[in-house]
């Protein structure tokens, strides 16, 4: 993801990152098992210090400082990362808010337990969706997406608002978070609206969202809508549409005829034909 306020790391900060990771591992144990009691505050304090260093370091060293923090967060337990990051989420410095979210997202990626704990601060992450800095909004949406087993359904509306964000990275991150949610009416409406739009990237994202939601239920409306997308002028949208129909499995049985036609169309892009053939197999499996 595009960095904020930090260039590539230097040698000094690579060494600092290694030291920080060593400290985190020492506190958490070699396999990142739960620390015994007093290790947590130490880890949180280390993470907080590393996070602050990103802003304090000279511009040439910020990349290394950021890498040290993200590396440490990746190996830490979520409660320690939350303790370090939560106070910074309303910091006046963009890079502090951004890296606090990145640290939370990194920790959320590292283990299922961390991802589940991330749900405890979902409300804070949702408030980050309204941040004035686009990179921070994107990071907030991406971190929301890291919540296990899924982001809370009540976060759907603010995420849907971001689908119209002028920064495409923000819209993309919001769509990724939405597609991890349980199927919801607001998400369906947003997808149905976007799939008829002029922007091919948004049509592609909408097709993916419909595929994810359609896979959760037996409703065939998404399949009908997606089937129409097999004629989209953009090959990437056709590829995404065929793949989304395959994701829906048996619920997309109505689209099998269209998919077969695409898979046999000699004028079609080979990748789209392959996607259509795979989708037919998946639907009929």
């Amino acid at each position, binding site marked *: *993801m*595009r*960095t*904020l306020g*930090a*260039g*590539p*790391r230097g040698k000094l900060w690579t060494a600092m990152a290694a030291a920080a990771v060593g400290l985190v591992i020492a506190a958490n144990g070699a*396999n990142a*098992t739960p620390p015994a009691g007093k290790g947590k505050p130490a880890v949180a304090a280390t993470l907080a210090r590393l996070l602050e260093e990103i802003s304090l370091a000279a511009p040439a060293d*910020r*990349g290394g400082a*950021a*890498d040290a923090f*993200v*590396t440490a967060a*990746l*190996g830490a337990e979520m409660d320690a990362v939350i303790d370090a990051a939560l106070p910074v989420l309303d910091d006046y410095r963009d890079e502090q808010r951004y890296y606090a979210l*990145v640290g939370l*997202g*990194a920790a*959320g*990626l*590292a*283990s*299922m*337990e961390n*991802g589940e704990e991330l749900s405890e601060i979902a409300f804070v992450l949702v408030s980050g969706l309204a941040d004035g800095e686009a990179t921070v909004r*994107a*990071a907030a949406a*991406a*971190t929301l*997406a*890291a*919540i*296990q087993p899924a982001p809370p359904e009540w976060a759907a509306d603010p995420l849907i608002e971001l689908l119209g964000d002028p920064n*495409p*990275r923000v819209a*993309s*991150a919001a769509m*990724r978070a939405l597609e*991890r949610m349980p199927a919801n009416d607001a998400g369906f409406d947003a997808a149905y609206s976007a799939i008829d739009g002029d922007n091919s*990237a948004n049509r*592609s994202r909408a097709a993916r969202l419909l595929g994810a939601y359609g*896979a959760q239920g037996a409703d065939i409306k998404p399949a009908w809508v997606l089937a129409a997308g097999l004629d989209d002028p953009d090959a990437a949208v056709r*590829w*995404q549409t065929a*793949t989304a129909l*395959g*994701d829906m*499995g048996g619920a997309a049985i109505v689209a099998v005829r269209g998919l077969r036609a695409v898979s046999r169309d*000699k004028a079609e892009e*080979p*990748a789209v034909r392959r996607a259509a*053939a*795979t*989708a037919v*197999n*998946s639907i009929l*499996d």
Partner: protein
Amino acid sequence: MIGLTRIGFYTFLRCVIGGRRHSADCPVRGFLARIAALIVVTAPLAAGPAQAGEEFIDFEEFTGPRKLAAVEPPLTIGNASFTGGQIVTNVARLRKVDRSTVYGTAHFCSGCQSTITIEFSQPVSNVSFMLMNGRLARPWFEIRDDTGQTVEFRLGSYFGQGSSKLITLPSSGIKKIVIGQTDSVTAFWWQFYIDNLRYTVDEGQQYLVNFSAFVPHDNVPAAPTAFCLSKDNWQPPGLRRSGRSPTGKARWARDDDFAPGNGRPSFRFGGGGPDADNELKGNRRKLYFAGDSRGFHPAAPTYRVRQLVTVIPDETLDADGVADDSVRNLAGEARAYAEDAMTDGIIDLADEDGIADDCSLFHKAHLAETDLMDVVVTRTGPKSVSIRFSGTLDSPLAGPAQVLGAIDWEFTLTLDSSVEPGRWTLSGAHDGFPAYEIYINGTPVYHHDPGAPPYEFARDVRKLLPPLDIAVATTSGDLP
């Protein structure tokens, strides 16, 4: 015009570019010959001032046997050199499309290769040629050039419709073309021919710049939180895949030799811990993604991301310095496989079960969004341009937070032809994973190797997270 309609478009092409050998098929050959001459005369003018001139090769100065027999040494005609096949004349299987002298290869030809390679001593553009299938089957063909351009299509049986095709390659700065079949029987049966090669030799003022990011190994583990849920309970530890059922599903057999840590990938989800056994008993399977399985190469057919642009530093030839419609932002298809695909330690064709979302073998395909990739060309002087390659490509390797774990890069490459020889200068930054490469007209400018496989999330893939890991110090060199 009426005459052209009556004889058909392909007959027209044969008459125009096929030379005298097609004269019997050309009802208005005098008229067509004049048109052909007009095309030849005007083509260099229409193609733009950056092109020196057009060359045309129809092999008519040679006469070969009627059937392919044995491979010939490389055949050089003009700037082009042909390898892998043999010159033949009046081939029986081409009687419907081309009875003249052609260059071909076949499986029964001793020493012939399954591909025909054309190499040019100077970069060329506007390449076109006729490709003809000599097989009864309808094979898929792939044509690759060293600029990264790939054309894939299917030809009909030699006795039916569509057995030949006029191929055009839009790239410029081409120095090598490889023509071959892509279907699975290529290793055993192939027979195809080429004729009527036409190209324009570049004067050298055009530069095709090619940036790619790719995964050198065959597989990459995704983040620990990227998994699929199997529809059925899968094997306990101690079983391994031993084959496939008639429906293509994996079969399992006991293997007491198998144990995590013995060199094969571990089945334990999340790297162990008290809950690992419980998760193993559940239906959660870790995901791996197929890599590109390749080294550094400008014409490699696979990549995670690729950006192409043709620039013209000389302002007198092109005002803005970028060839029209030459900017391309491409994303490769990412294919995820369930953990059972890795029981043999490799992702290969055997793992392609053709069924998505079943959490077994091939599981899911992913196509990244290319709307966050940019190629910006800026003229910096009368004979210099600056190209900024940048982008962020969401990576499914990062699991649910793939926007955080995107492939990120930003390079600035300056080409200056005001000095002799011309110079390029590169600077930039990118993530530490995967591999990155930049070429100018097929000549390497920058390579980054992510390190030796096997890759691990904690050591390698995590480098996709912010910030950018690698600063590319300013380097420069002579333009090719």
